[in-house]
């Protein structure tokens, strides 16, 4: 086993040296160096001078406000450009087959991955270094504590490594450099913008710590408080945003987790480090053998387990009324929202775990080619089938473990909500509380069977035609009829997505944003027909898989 020091010793890493030579050739790098210097100097100068000369803002505060645009520039260079280059460079090496040369050398897979991880974006790191004089100006002139600077840039670089590692994992899988480039850029945007703003609003606040923003919120934002330098303006009666509104995106707040609150700094470091380890494991597996799955089945199961703990830990704080999601519905009073939460939290959990399971299934379900190879190999070794944890194994028992993990999390959450009294208003309504977990379990089995039988390409087509199209048709029909009737809900119920939503609806009497009273009957019919469709589809896929298996054997 090599030590961490050996592993991270870039001076002795041949792959890193390769990129140091090729990426930093003066003729190639000079354009980027000049562009960085010119743009950064211009942004810093114009921002500082306009604030001090025109807005009469004190120099110390003006210097502090420069930090944010500087971070944006540094982020664009290292997080965005660096990530894109890492993914496209790796895909290119794979297509050129030069990756194969490197695979055959005695350099260990992890050292190779480290070489690519730090070598491919080396131009971006040197461009970042060119912004350091500007940062020094901000820190010195703005009188910013060095501890704060250290915290922010520690998370910045962990974030950079996380995104670049994502790019390495993407690059090991993609077959065209342009797709690797675009997908990795999209990942950065997704992890920085889409997840924090959407998922955290649904109670899954831990997902916002995949970006650098919470630490900026914790460390940088307080420095921008101008009240330290100038007296506050007189309070007006109708300000458009109050303090609560600012909490809509709660960057910088402590992280609620079960009974504890964690510092965003440490939570971000922990979460991103765990993901870096996961992505490195994925990359190393693909490095060892291109045909290997990115994740082994036990590792995928572990990821699901950790996700469920994190999701439950975050939703727990909503249940115990320590934090409040669903700002989108306007209410600020948690008691007014109790029925919305009673419906919404299990639904959020169900959808989030289902999406993750789909991703994990896509990683661990073998192709038919792999499955046949596993069977032939097993037969050669006098076994009936591949070992359960092998990549080539179809392994339905593993799928049942996924379902069991997901349902245990669901019932823990549901039980806690019941204990907290959220479900008391359901008493006497006849609402079948078992329906959503049943549909949830069925959807998980169905999704697995779908991937197993139709494989990834067929599943994508099914998502379009069976999951989305019925919902769109139902929406158009609703717009045409201007009412929600059983016709639309039955059409929509062909989609498991709609079936999950309709299964979590209340039966009667409860008018809520989820559940307008006039549409109760239609939704109930939709939920039941959806469940029947789901059972029928799952049974069909199961039968088809048995047929296929016999044919493949």
């Amino acid at each position, binding site marked *: 086993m090599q030590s961490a020091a050996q592993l991270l010793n870039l001076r002795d890493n041949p792959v890193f040296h390769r990129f140091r030579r*090729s990426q930093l050739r003066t003729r190639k790098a000079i354009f980027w160096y000049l562009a960085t210097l010119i743009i950064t100097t211009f942004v810093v100068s114009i921002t500082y001078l306009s604030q001090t000369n025109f807005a009469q803002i004190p120099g110390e505060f003006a210097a502090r406000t420069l930090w944010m645009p500087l971070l944006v520039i540094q982020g664009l260079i290292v997080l965005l450009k660096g990530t894109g280059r890492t993914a496209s460079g790796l895909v290119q090496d794979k297509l050129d087959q030069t990756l194969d040369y490197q695979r055959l050398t005695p350099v260990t897979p992890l050292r190779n991955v480290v070489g690519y991880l730090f070598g491919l974006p080396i131009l971006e790191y040197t461009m970042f270094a060119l912004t350091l004089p500007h940062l020094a100006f901000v820190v010195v002139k703005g009188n910013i504590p060095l501890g704060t600077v250290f915290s922010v840039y520690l998370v910045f670089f962990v974030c950079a490594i996380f995104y670049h590692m994502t790019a390495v994992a993407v690059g090991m899988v993609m077959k065209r450099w342009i797709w690797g480039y675009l997908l990795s850029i999209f990942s950065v945007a997704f992890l920085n913008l889409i997840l924090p703003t959407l998922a955290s609003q649904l109670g899954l606040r831990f997902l916002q710590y995949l970006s650098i923003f919470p630490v900026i919120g914790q460390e940088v934002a307080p420095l921008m408080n101008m009240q330290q330098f100038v007296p506050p303006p007189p309070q007006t009666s109708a300000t458009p945003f109050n303090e609560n509104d600012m909490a809509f995106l709660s960057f910088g707040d402590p992280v609620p987790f079960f009974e504890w609150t964690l510092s965003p700094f440490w939570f971000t470091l922990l979460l991103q480090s765990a993901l870096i380890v996961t992505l490195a494991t994925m990359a190393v597996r693909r490095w060892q053998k291109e045909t290997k799955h990115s994740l082994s089945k036990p590792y995928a199961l572990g990821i699901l387990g950790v996700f469920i703990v994190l999701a439950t830990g975050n939703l727990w704080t909503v249940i115990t009324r320590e934090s409040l999601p669903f700002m989108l519905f306007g209410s600020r009073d948690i008691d007014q929202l109790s029925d919305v939460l009673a419906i919404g939290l299990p639904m959020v959990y169900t959808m989030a775990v289902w999406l993750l399971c789909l991703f994990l299934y896509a990683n661990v379900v073998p192709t038919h080619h792999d499955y046949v*190879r596993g069977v032939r190999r097993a037969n050669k070794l006098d076994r009936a089938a591949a070992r359960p944890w092998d990549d080539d194994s179809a392994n339905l028992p593993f799928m049942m473990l996924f379902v069991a993990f997901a349902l245990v999390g669901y019932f823990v959450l549901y039980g806690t909500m019941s204990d907290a009294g959220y479900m008391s208003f359901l008493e006497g309504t006849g609402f079948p509380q078992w329906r959503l977990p049943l549909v949830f379990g069925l959807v998980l089995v169905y999704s697995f069977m779908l991937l197993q039988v139709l494989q990834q390409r067929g599943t994508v087509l099914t998502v379009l035609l069976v999951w989305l199209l019925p919902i769109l048709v139902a929406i158009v029909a609703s717009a045409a009829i201007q009412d929600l009737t059983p016709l639309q809900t039955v059409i929509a119920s062909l989609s498991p997505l709609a079936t999950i939503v309709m299964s979590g609806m209340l039966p009667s009497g409860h008018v809520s944003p989820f559940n307008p009273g006039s549409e109760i009957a239609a939704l109930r019919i939709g939920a039941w027909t959806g469940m029947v469709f789901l059972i029928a589809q799952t049974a069909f896929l199961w039968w088809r898989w048995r047929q296929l298996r016999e044919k493949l054997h």
Partner: protein
Amino acid sequence: MEHAPALTIDNLRVDYGDFTAVEDLSLTLGPGEIFGLVGPNGAGKTSTIRVLANLLEPTYGEVRILGHDLFEEPEAALEKLGYMPDLAPVIPDLKVWEFLDLYAHSYGYHGSEKRDRVDWCLGRVKLADKRDVFGKALSRGMTQRVVLAKTLLHDPKLLLLDEPASGMDPIARRDMRLILQELAARGASIVVSSHILSELSDMCTSVGIMHNGKLLRSGSMASTLESIQAETAIIRIELIEAVESAQTRLESDDRIDEISVEGSRISFRFRGDKNDQSELLRVLVRENFRLVSFSIRESGIESVLMSLIESE
């Protein structure tokens, strides 16, 4: 492990879905042996070589390199393995010496030892004057030579060369042949694939002929060629009369094809060994065909290969 064969393949099978690229291939290669793997495109040569380089997972089978199980202890097995792929690429934005330096470093050479090794290999493939040229500026043949230099860097004991001569000019091919023969003389074993048998015939000590994933024949170069040639020969007979009835008679024999008639002479391809040839002559004489001559012409290497593949 010192006396272990350089390469042992046992029962190797490679599938791509329903298509079987390599079927139950078994082979043993001794030290100093140059083994030519020959067959038409799609025969399974590249799949075999990629499995031996641990770049492709077989359906099943065992591969031992210098006594080490390739799938159980890949690091030890690959340590002394050199691999040159078909249409071998170089890294376009590295200079030739930088490209070799990268792999010399990867194979554990440092400092002056690394520089010496790079220089030696460049000299060996006669590219010392191209050391500062970028990979993207090299011709196809030069690229092949640079990759060959890379393959020689760590003094491998087993070399896998997939169509190494493609793109090389005749002089470079001769140089490559000399290099490989010199390496073999020093104890290295070499597997070299090609779809052109004549390219291998003056270099290899043994040969295997692959078709549709199966190893049809293997053995020493001379004996394999001889046995195939003995089995597939072009026979020419000359008759005084009854040429047409002789042609009809020959057409009825399923060991004979490609019959051509020129005046009183008939040429045809005959599949069978010396005994069969003798028997054919006896039958023709017994059936009162008045023969003036019966001559056997040995087939060229490529036609031997073609006839063997077609007969399979």
